[in-house]
């Protein structure tokens, strides 16, 4: 990180004489141009340094997860493993109800969240984008209201409601909360995806005798695939990572999702932190997110920008 400030001060020094008479002198470009080659190497070096800093925590965590349990808890710690072992992974595989249970809990909740988001947001986006609906923008704002109201504040009434309905401690209940979190974004993305489709496509289908549902299912859905992928991707990430609602709603050990499970790995059985096991569980929690991100980065970044910049 230390190379950034020095790079900056060099630049400021180069520009200093002209700061008050911006746009008047021609010498500036010459001054900058002469150092352009060095500067490119400097910028490259800064890029690599930044990447190393950002990746270090994850890499060190992975290294610690494959140390032997005693080396992982040793003080002072080693950066690189001196011993290699899968004992930490083996330990968390059998921790409490067993890793398969927790993985399937998280996958169930995420799958339900994805399903609900699609079932609600695809028709809603279609209805608001392709039809003249009375009070359209009002309905749209109502669907986006969740963006302005922090879900943290709604967890208490939702908890009371779910207790009455028998939804507390169920994957269905947690998936409803995750859907609530993710619905505004999903509706927003789907409405814009449907609005971007040219009218001709729809008109041709109507002339061929398709009703509005057939138009949606056969004609439009294949065209808005990118929107659907974005909705699925974000619903998965949100649900997989969500902590507070899962902490509050899932009281039974066998119902825990992965984030709650990692916290209970830290607490462990005896109170002392088992550092190797903890890092193994951290890696398990991170891995699906990284995989999804690397594979679908294009959708992720564009979806992210469309969600934020509106």
């Amino acid at each position, binding site marked *: 990180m230390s190379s950034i400030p020095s790079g900056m001060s060099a630049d400021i020094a180069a520009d200093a004489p002209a700061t008050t008479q911006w746009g008047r002198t021609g010498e500036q470009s010459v001054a900058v141009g002469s150092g352009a080659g060095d500067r490119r190497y400097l910028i490259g070096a800064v890029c690599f340094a930044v990447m190393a800093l950002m990746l270090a925590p994850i890499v060190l965590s992975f290294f610690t997860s494959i140390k032997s349990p005693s080396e992982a808890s040793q003080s002072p710690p080693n*950066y690189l493993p001196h011993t290699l072992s899968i004992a930490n992974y083996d330990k968390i595989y059998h921790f409490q109800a067993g890793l398969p249970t927790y993985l399937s809990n998280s996958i169930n909740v995420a799958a339900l969240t994805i399903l609900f988001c699609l079932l609600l947001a695809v028709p809603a986006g279609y209805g608001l984008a392709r039809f003249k609906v009375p009070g359209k923008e009002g309905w749209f704002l109502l669907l986006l209201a969740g963006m*302005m109201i922090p879900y943290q504040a709604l967890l*208490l009434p939702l908890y009371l409601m779910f207790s009455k309905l028998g939804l507390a401690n169920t994957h269905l209940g947690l998936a*409803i909360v995750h859907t609530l979190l993710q619905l505004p974004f999903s509706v927003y993305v789907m409405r814009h995806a449907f609005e971007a489709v040219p009218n001709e496509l729809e008109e041709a289908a109507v002339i061929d005798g398709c009703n509005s549902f057939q138009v949606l299912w056969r004609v439009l859905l294949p065209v808005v695939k990118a929107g659907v992928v974005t909705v699925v991707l974000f619903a998965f990430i949100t649900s997989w990572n969500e902590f507070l609602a899962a902490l509050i709603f899932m009281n039974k050990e066998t119902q825990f999702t992965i984030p709650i499970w990692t916290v209970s790995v830290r607490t462990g059985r005896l109170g002392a932190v088992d550092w190797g096991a*903890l890092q193994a569980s951290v890696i398990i929690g991170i891995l699906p997110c990284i995989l999804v991100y690397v594979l679908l980065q294009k959708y992720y970044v564009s979806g992210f920008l469309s969600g934020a910049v509106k």
Partner: protein
Amino acid sequence: MNAVSGRYVGLLYAAPAILFVLAFLVYPLGQLFYTSLTSASLLGGGEWVGVRNYVRAWNDSQFWTSLLFTLKYTLYITPILMGLGFLLALLTADNTRLKKVTRGVIFLPVVIGLAVSSLLWFWLFDQQVGLFNQMLVDVGILDRSITWFTEPTRALWAVIFSITWKVVGFGMILFVASIQSIDREITEAALIDGAGYWQRVQKIILPLSYRTILLATLISVIGSMLAVDQFIIMTAGNPRGQTFTSVYWIYQNSFVFFKLGYGSALSIILMLIILGFAAAQIILTRRRAET
């Protein structure tokens, strides 16, 4: 499809989502407001007490401690996230291969879970086995490794450090998009006029990114005001309740002490504060657009 039936067909398609929002957002919101005016707790109660819960919040010193701590956290972390995010955006805005990869790597921690990343940093900061501590010792910043979570200010900075790592890519991506959308002609004209790099940043990129900066700041402020996961995991409110955030204090009252009425009142207060920030942002954006 004729025009008249079409109107209701569209609404019909939106109906499931609207019903979902009415059932799980609007109704609970009403319930929350009602509960905040009662003495409900796990043991029963639930008589009407008017604004007593709100008066109680006013007199609750832990509520103020938590709110001030949350504001402090927000006040410290937001300029760091925005400033660093903007510098990283300047560094990586060109679409060369190296810079695209750098951007991708900086953004990576945004997609991993806050709970998991907090556990990761809880380990890195540990006095006995933490490699961040070890690194500070090895490069000579510290004489020996220290405990980060036993003293409130130090705990606050540890959390800020970990969250900066986690979300700095968020602002960066927004700023990169904003920098890339600047008309090439403007930049070229400035270059011909002999503007140096930092002059272009100051006179062109910063002013033209105003809306994005405001937006990113708002998202960051709201996110920080609602911070809770990282504190539950890294500090647990310790020492002596000095690192409770607002949402954490709501969580304690609602789900640990089961003071449902009081927890509801705290939730309503927090919601109003958040809406206040959002309104301020909208006013700022409008005012700028008019001038």
